[in-house]
């Protein structure tokens, strides 16, 4: 595309009052461009004016107005590159004239005086002009083989619900179920928790109706006794190979080498060739991930509803509860099986179990944690099962000893109704021991609500074993991805497959595969059915987006995708390994193979690449690098006391909105910083920082999302990777005789708009204390 540039300056919202617009126009003149002004660009007249300009041949617009986060649709012109120079939030609102006074006519006469705010505006225009020179209009990535079918893994209530929802929306669905019949865990229940208002009574399991509905639905194909051997390809064109459980076939997915096999005897990393050899050996008899199964079935997206298994209670931690040693101490799942058979009888001697104690927490060593993987569901199940005892025996008694009784939402109604039963007794307490006492068991508990240590006689003791997600034991999906067949364990989710529980439900760390039900967290049938709807919608959204060649999430609608300049690739594999979403595979030599529809467009690969050969049409190493270089760094040649220059690379997910909100509230920060929005801190290539410092800027900061245990990074690992890279940059700075303190990274959440400007100003102050960059002016 032949670019024809146009620079347009809006004078509304205080821009015209605060800034010297003529001086800004002169900046465009320096680049050989003529800037035009308009009183209100976003108004109908302003837009008409821009459209007329476009009709006149302009296709690359530099709009000096408000933040790119507002009026996004107003300033979207098809076929045009639009750059938004943020004069309003970025300059005028965040730097009001009462705090940053303009120069008087008198001051202007002396050339040694400067107006920091005006300088800021002019720099931002220079940066915008530099950027548009380096970017292209994106073109959508189109798949060769495209499927709109949805694969649902797991034929329990969740899987069937997801399949029904997707099928009713007009999509073809295949359910694969490991067992020989549909139904999953729900088949083993006597009754289940309520799923509708008033949430008070136990109801018969809903699973039977689901099975009937699935069988009657023409859009759903059911494959029982089937598991996924491998899922190759990418969203929109996943190739699935199915097999019988336990079968060994050549399309079983190969596994990556475990870390201990990736080094030689002396502990040194093996080279690429040797690694590949070992890998082939390790996975003998299995086709490489890049080999597609010619008989595989094509799917557009996957819903993972593989469910759960009861936690195995083993080891010393539960010895005091007698589990394993006393036959009448059982788990909740074992109790459910007894209840399903008929009246509740003791496993040891078949005697009627009229007094049952439900233990919700192992209470070992003053620890009030519940059993592993327990939660609201185990609380609710104890209430349900207590009711079984009362339903079976007129004189039955059920005791619940808990550390936490969790009945969220309207399940509180269920708790209340169970509580009303005169034969159900609950207390918080530490269960000390379960022991045999004659023909019965004696349960002792301390710190109870009754104010003292007590003991209760029981026929049966039921322990609240938690729900372990199927993905804890097995990859289940068996993805033919270079990063491995399962969801990468980032050490936070205990085997639950999730990427960000709060912000992005259903999203796993693999695009196109959406988790629902107990693989995501332990949940009730009701929650699982709702979850299934969410995951089915996500799967449909993925199919539609992939078909249009745009990103699904979280940059929904983004048409760009990473482009590799392979001639210069050194096969270092950093991109393949660091991609948070496993979007890249590699061949035997280690050359990455992109899978654009797996990609979430965060640019982590671009930040990782030491050769800087990865970029997007409108966001690449060169475009940002040129913006950095466009910043004017005044030196002592210009002013006797030149202002400092600090570069801020700001994540556009949280940090940039936080700064916009700060501007809206007229909260200021130093006018000596120049901010560049980035897709994610993971996309920050260290070359930008080096360039900034070597051209004399005094400091660089990165502002992005929190990382660690409660991370908020929209791309899971971006801000964490950035922090690792920033640590490494310290050595490079030291070799340049620069202080490591000149580069910093800050965490910010979107609501911390008061904190963001403060962090910036404090950083600038700390840089001022260090003194100017010695490279300034060279």
């Amino acid at each position, binding site marked *: 595309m032949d670019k024809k540039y146009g620079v347009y300056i809006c004078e509304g919202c205080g821009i015209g009052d605060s800034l010297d617009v003529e001086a800004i126009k002169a900046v465009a003149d320096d680049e050989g461009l003529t800037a035009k002004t308009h009183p209100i660009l976003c108004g109908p007249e302003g837009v008409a004016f821009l459209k007329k300009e476009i009709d006149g041949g302009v296709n690359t617009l530099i709009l000096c107005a408000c933040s790119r986060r507002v009026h996004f649709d107003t300033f979207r012109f098809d076929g045009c590159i639009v750059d938004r120079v943020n004069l309003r939030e970025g300059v005028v609102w965040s730097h009001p004239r009462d705090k940053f006074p303009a120069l008087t006519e008198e001051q202007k006469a002396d050339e040694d005086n400067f107006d920091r705010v005006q300088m800021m505006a002019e720099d931002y225009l220079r940066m915008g002009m530099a950027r548009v020179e380096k970017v292209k209009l994106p073109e959508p990535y189109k798949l060769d083989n495209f499927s709109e079918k949805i694969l649902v893994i797991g034929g329990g209530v969740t899987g069937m619900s997801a399949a029904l929802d997707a099928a009713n929306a007009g999509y073809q669905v295949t359910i694969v179920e490991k067992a020989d019949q549909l139904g999953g865990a729900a088949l083993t229940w006597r009754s289940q928790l309520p799923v509708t208002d008033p949430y008070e009574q136990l109801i018969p399991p809903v699973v039977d109706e689901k099975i009937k509905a699935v069988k009657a639905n023409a859009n759903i194909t059911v494959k029982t006794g089937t598991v996924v051997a491998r899922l190759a390809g990418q969203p929109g064109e996943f190739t699935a190979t199915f097999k019988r459980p336990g079968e060994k076939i050549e399309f079983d997915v190969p596994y990556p080498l475990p870390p201990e096999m990736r080094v030689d005897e002396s502990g040194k990393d093996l080279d690429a060739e040797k690694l590949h050899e070992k890998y082939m050996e390790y996975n003998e008899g299995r086709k490489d991930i890049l080999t597609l199964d010619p008989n595989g079935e094509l799917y557009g997206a996957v819903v993972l509803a593989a469910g759960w298994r009861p936690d195995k209670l083993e080891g010393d931690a539960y010895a005091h509860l007698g589990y394993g040693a006393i036959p009448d101490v059982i788990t909740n799942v074992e109790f459910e099986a007894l209840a399903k058979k008929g009246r509740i009888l003791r496993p040891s001697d078949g005697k009627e179990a009229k007094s049952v104690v439900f233990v919700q927490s192992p209470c070992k060593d003053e620890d009030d944690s519940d059993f592993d993987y327990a939660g609201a569901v185990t609380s609710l199940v104890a209430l349900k099962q207590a009711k079984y005892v009362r339903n079976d025996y007129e004189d039955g008694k059920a005791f619940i000893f808990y550390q936490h009784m969790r009945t969220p939402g309207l399940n509180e109604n269920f708790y*209340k109704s169970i509580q*009303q039963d005169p034969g159900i007794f609950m207390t918080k307490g530490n269960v000390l021991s379960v022991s045999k006492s004659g023909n019965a068991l004696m349960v002792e508990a301390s710190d109870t609500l009754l104010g003292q*240590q*007590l003991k209760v006689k029981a026929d049966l003791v039921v322990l609240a074993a938690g729900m372990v997600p199927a993905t804890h034991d097995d990859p289940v999906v068996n993805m033919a991805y270079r990063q491995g067949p399962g969801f990468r364990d980032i050490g936070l989710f205990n085997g639950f497959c999730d990427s960000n529980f709060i912000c992005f439900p259903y999203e796993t760390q693999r695009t196109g595969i959406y988790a629902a039900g107990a693989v995501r967290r332990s949940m009730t049938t009701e929650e699982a059915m709702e979850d299934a709807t969410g995951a089915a919608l996500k799967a449909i959204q993925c199919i539609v987006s992939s078909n249009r060649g745009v990103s699904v999430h979280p940059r929904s609608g983004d048409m760009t995708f990473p482009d590799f300049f392979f001639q210069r690739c050194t096969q270092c594999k950093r991109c393949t390994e660091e991609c948070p979403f496993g979007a890249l595979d590699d061949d035997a030599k280690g050359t990455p193979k992109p899978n654009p529809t797996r990609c979430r467009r965060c640019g982590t690969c671009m930040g990782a690449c030491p050769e800087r050969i990865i970029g997007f049409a409108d966001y690449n190493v060169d475009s940002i690098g040129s913006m950095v270089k466009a910043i004017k760094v005044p030196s002592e040649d210009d002013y006797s006391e030149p202002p400092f220059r600090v570069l801020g690379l700001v994540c556009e997910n949280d940090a940039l909105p936080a700064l916009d909100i700060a501007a809206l509230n007229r909260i200021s920060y130093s006018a000596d910083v120049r901010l560049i929005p980035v897709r994610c801190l993971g996309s920050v290539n260290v070359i930008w920082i080096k360039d900034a410092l070597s051209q004399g800027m005094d400091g660089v900061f990165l502002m992005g999302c929190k990382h660690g245990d409660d991370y908020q990074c929209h791309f899971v690992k971006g801000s964490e990777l950035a922090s690792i890279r920033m640590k490494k940059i310290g050595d490079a700075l030291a070799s340049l005789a620069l202080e490591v303190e000149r580069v910093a990274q800050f965490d910010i959440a979107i609501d911390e708009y008061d904190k963001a400007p403060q962090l910036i100003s404090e950083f600038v102050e700390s840089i001022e204390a260090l003194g100017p960059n010695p490279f300034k002016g060279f």
Partner: protein
Amino acid sequence: MSDSYYVDPDVGFIKEVAKLGGQDLKKCFQCATCSVACPISPDTKPFPRKEMIAASWGLKDRLVGNGDIWLCHNCGDCTALCPRGAKPGDVLGALRAYAISEYAAPKVLAKAVNDPKKLVPLMALPAVIFVVVGFLCNMLFGVQWLNFTPGGDTVIHSNFFSTWLVDIIFIPTFFFAIAVFALGLKRFVADMHANALLEGKTTKEKIDPAGIVQALIKVVPTILQHKKFNECGENKERATPHMMVLFSFIALFIVTNIFFVALYIFGQHGPYSQLNPVKWLANVGGIALIIGSGMMIIQRLSKKDQVSSYKDWWLLGLVFGLGVTGMLAQLTRLGGLAGVSYFVYFVHLMFVWYLFAYTPFSKLAHLVYRTVAMTYVEYSGRK
């Protein structure tokens, strides 16, 4: 461990307490708002939170002998603030009713007094006793203590219904009630002390009678002035009518004793002149009784959020009926309506008999149990 308390919930007890007005006790989720809200609960081991869980666990032995349930004056503050609608105030009221039945003997009578179905037979009982005793005396001893045709110009109740007949029935009844209370209290005080020791509410190992008397002397003014009742919030307006009823009972008790002494020692017969100061006291007491109990009935009717069960209506009905029939008997006597007056007097006598006979079994027993419990608490140094 040996110091564990063996818990064996009594489901029957829970159901019984529910029937007595504690039907919401299972709604409690142990937040302890009640104990915080209660204006008269002690700072250590405060009630009624602990009583609520003991009740929902059916721990009868923890509650019946628990002095704390008597410290509660059913202010209603806890009930009004309870986030779950468990109505702790009413649960404690039900527990008190249960405790009264538990300490009263014979049990059959205690059960009957709290059973609405037994109301008619219980009411008929004194009428039968009066008539049967009256006839028997006539037949055996030839005395006309029960005269259905009392002539004369003025209406004199004793002509119809001899004082002798009244007293040979009432005096044993009174001592029967005293005996029932005495037996009940013996067990109650022992249980209360054991419970206080168990729950660590007292440091006194033994009960010292002198100490109890001293405590009683301290407690009586508190009761008479309704000091505790006046600390209440929600049901504060009940304090005044309650005080009226209490003082009218005291006044009428004094009047009755004066009559008794005047009759049997000085041989002076009633009815007294309206100018007699004793008569003044009697009339003031009677009016206070009617107004006080009437106000309490109205207050209970308007308080829809609090439980009013049979036991409450039974007592209010009795007190109100006592006052109204007494006053009516006097007015009809003065008005010369002989037939009506004799009938109303008969009904009044029956009410008085209920009062004597059924007090140890009914809610009115709180007069004794609460006084004793408050005395014990004063003695035990509960803080």
